[in-house]
């Protein structure tokens, strides 16, 4: 997906006006790598179409998604320490306690992106909850992008990527050196079931019921109506006592009153009793 000089000039001017970001000549790759996925998620067939839409509406959901994509740092392992701490200290122990009779757990990372989030959660589970080895754990990770899923399945990360957020003891334990890059251990890669899934599509019935869903840093791409639709579907696939995690800047408040944030952690949500 390449960007024409004219589109690059437009995007540069747009993000400069919207977010005071300066994109100098030579940063075309940033526009390509960051806005390509935005175009894909928005159902557009490439950056030229995205720019056309952006020229038409400079203040809508797409414009926000563009600004966000250009301002957000790349994802990293254990991005934001808080949610992982809450998972380790509260959520997973509570789920293990609640499901101890049938020893089954189902987990969904709903916006796998380049895979750091599902792999971080997988490492957290392996490290701190070894009793799950004898459980039936269904661990599904989805993304709308086939290219991203291929990357996830492959599990290869650059040195710069493993330098960010990944504790060195976990690097040694769960990765192997592959040339200059690092590849996630085969056991973890095969543990996770990677599936293509469009959150705004109609395939929600194909999903099982989940105890835990991570839907982090993806709702920002959608307008309120779309968020409502996704959260209504989420209430159907999340077990009544399940847990939903959103990104630290995202909330269900004023979007879907069927959910309420946990007092202990504001990006963790539970369903209200019917």
């Amino acid at each position, binding site marked *: 997906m390449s960007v024409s000089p004219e589109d690059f000039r437009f995007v540069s001017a747009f993000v400069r006006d919207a977010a005071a970001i300066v994109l100098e000549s030579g940063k075309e790759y940033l526009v390509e790598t960051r806005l390509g996925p935005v175009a894909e998620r928005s159902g557009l067939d490439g950056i030229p179409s995205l720019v056309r839409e952006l020229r038409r509406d400079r203040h809508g959901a797409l414009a926000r998604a563009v600004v966000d994509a250009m301002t957000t*740092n790349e994802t990293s392992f254990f991005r934001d320490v808080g949610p992982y701490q809450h998972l380790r200290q509260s959520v997973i122990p509570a789920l293990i306690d609640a499901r101890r009779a049938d020893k089954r757990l189902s987990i969904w990372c709903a916006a796998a992106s380049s895979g750091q989030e599902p792999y971080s959660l997988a490492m957290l589970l392996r490290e701190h909850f070894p009793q799950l080895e004898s459980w039936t754990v269904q661990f599904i990770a989805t993304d709308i992008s086939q290219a991203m899923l291929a990357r996830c399945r492959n599990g290869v990360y650059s040195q710069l990527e493993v*330098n*960010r957020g990944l504790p*060195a003891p976990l690097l040694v334990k769960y990765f192997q050196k592959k040339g200059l890059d690092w590849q996630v251990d085969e056991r973890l890669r095969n543990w996770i079931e990677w599936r293509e899934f469009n959150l705004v599509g109609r395939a929600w019935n194909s999903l099982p019921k989940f105890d835990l869903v991570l839907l982090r840093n993806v709702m920002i791409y959608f307008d309120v109506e779309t968020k409502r639709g996704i959260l209504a579907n989420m209430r159907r696939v999340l077990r009544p006592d399940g847990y939903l995690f959103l990104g630290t800047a995202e909330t269900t408040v004023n979007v879907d009153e069927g959910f309420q944030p946990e007092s202990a952690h504001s990006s963790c949500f539970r369903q209200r009793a019917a």
Partner: protein
Amino acid sequence: MLALVVDDSAVIRTVLTRILSGLGYEVLSAIHGRDALNKLEAGASPALALVDWNMPEMNGYEFIRALRTDARWRSLPVMMVTTETEIEQVARALAAGANEYLMKPFTPEMVQDKLALLGLSPTQG
């Protein structure tokens, strides 16, 4: 809080000093492991140490082993910051007592992330 930076490269010492100062640390520099041990013996009391591997006199690996055999510095959080990027070396550094490992090249964000992993949440300067 005081951070000890041990690296024989003046450029790396300057870069790390700038990053750590931005995070609210005071920085004490040493040019190799022996120099760092001398500074500790002289009374320096850092909250963490960032240590290169390949240095003259005493390399980072030897320095960390020396720290871990002395009760005074056994629990000092140490992060290795090095161009050594083979998994065996990461494992070796951790086994010797390094708490974290950062491969060069690095960005300020990476340093900050690693400090967070060590439970060191510096105040933004």
